[in-house]
């Protein structure tokens, strides 16, 4: 009884220290998205390469696709760009680029300079679709399954290793699910 009384402050301190350590190692920018396991918000937006044609969520039903939010003004998009190019080479998944609050000429020259990993890019000039997807920090990447449900959201640039460890296993799993 006596011993417990003296040990108590130490135990409390250790518990507190553990909680603070967890708090320090978490990324405050990583806010859980309420959209996981919800249907991807519908859109119909002009295609960057052919602005007179639109792409809608309906066109993507039945396939697993990534929605990568990017912009020519976005610095960390450059960082993840080579990784997206590598992913595109594997030809395993449709990559839709959501060109967020950007100008078409700037976006086009960006793709020409750095290469185009996107199956198709669509223009969200006023950021409305961005709001629907809860976008708050470009780049962001969503993984959407064959039924049009968001299964994963990645905030910030895709890092080396993320493709192999997160995206590819998930895409392979989703590809096996029935449409």
């Amino acid at each position, binding site marked *: 009884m006596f011993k417990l009384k003296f040990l108590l402050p130490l135990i409390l301190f250790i518990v507190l220290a553990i909680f603070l350590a967890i708090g320090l190692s978490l990324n405050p*920018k990583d806010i859980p998205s309420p959209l996981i396991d919800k249907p991807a918000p519908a859109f119909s937006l002009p295609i960057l390469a052919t602005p007179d044609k639109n792409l809608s969520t309906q066109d993507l039903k039945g396939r697993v696709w990534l929605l990568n939010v990017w912009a020519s003004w976005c610095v960390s998009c450059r960082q993840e760009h080579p990784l997206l190019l590598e992913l595109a080479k594997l030809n395993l998944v449709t990559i839709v680029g959501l060109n967020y*609050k950007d100008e078409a000429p700037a976006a086009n020259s960006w793709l020409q300079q750095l290469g185009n990993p996107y199956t198709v890019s669509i223009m969200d000039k006023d950021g409305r679709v961005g709001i629907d997807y809860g976008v708050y920090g470009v780049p962001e990447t969503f993984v959407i399954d064959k039924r049009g449900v968001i299964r994963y959201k990645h905030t910030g640039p895709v890092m080396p290793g993320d493709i192999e460890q997160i995206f590819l296993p998930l895409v392979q799993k989703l590809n096996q699910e029935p449409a």
Partner: protein
Amino acid sequence: MKKVLLLVLSLLAFPLSAGVEYHQFDDPNKEQAYQNLISELRCLVCQNQTIADSNADLAKDLRQQVYEMLQQGKSQQDVVDFMTQRYGDFVMYRPAFTLKTGLLWLGPSAFLLIGVITVFMLARNKKAKAQITLDKQQQTRLNDILQKGEED
């Protein structure tokens, strides 16, 4: 001196002039709702500011969104639902009380309660220890000493 004063005052006035874009409302109730909402919604880019305080691009877009929804006749709750569906509970400075946010709301009172109970128990413990009971011999001695003191 006057010039210096003017300079100081104009420096102080700066935050006001750096404010946000102006939205025209016909209905004062809607304007009030707008002000309420933008000072309740968190800017997710600069997480310790409301969208009323923030100059971030996203905050501007969200203010525009709030404005348009109110003009379309949506209620404050509609706007709150719209935002939490997209950005999660974190977008509200005072999130709704749910199972997930329960700890956030009840945590401080729980800690206060634990503190009060601890203090109460410690105090009671001390009081119990302070009440020393004397046996008969000690009691008569005590009475003797007290009596002697009075006689002196």
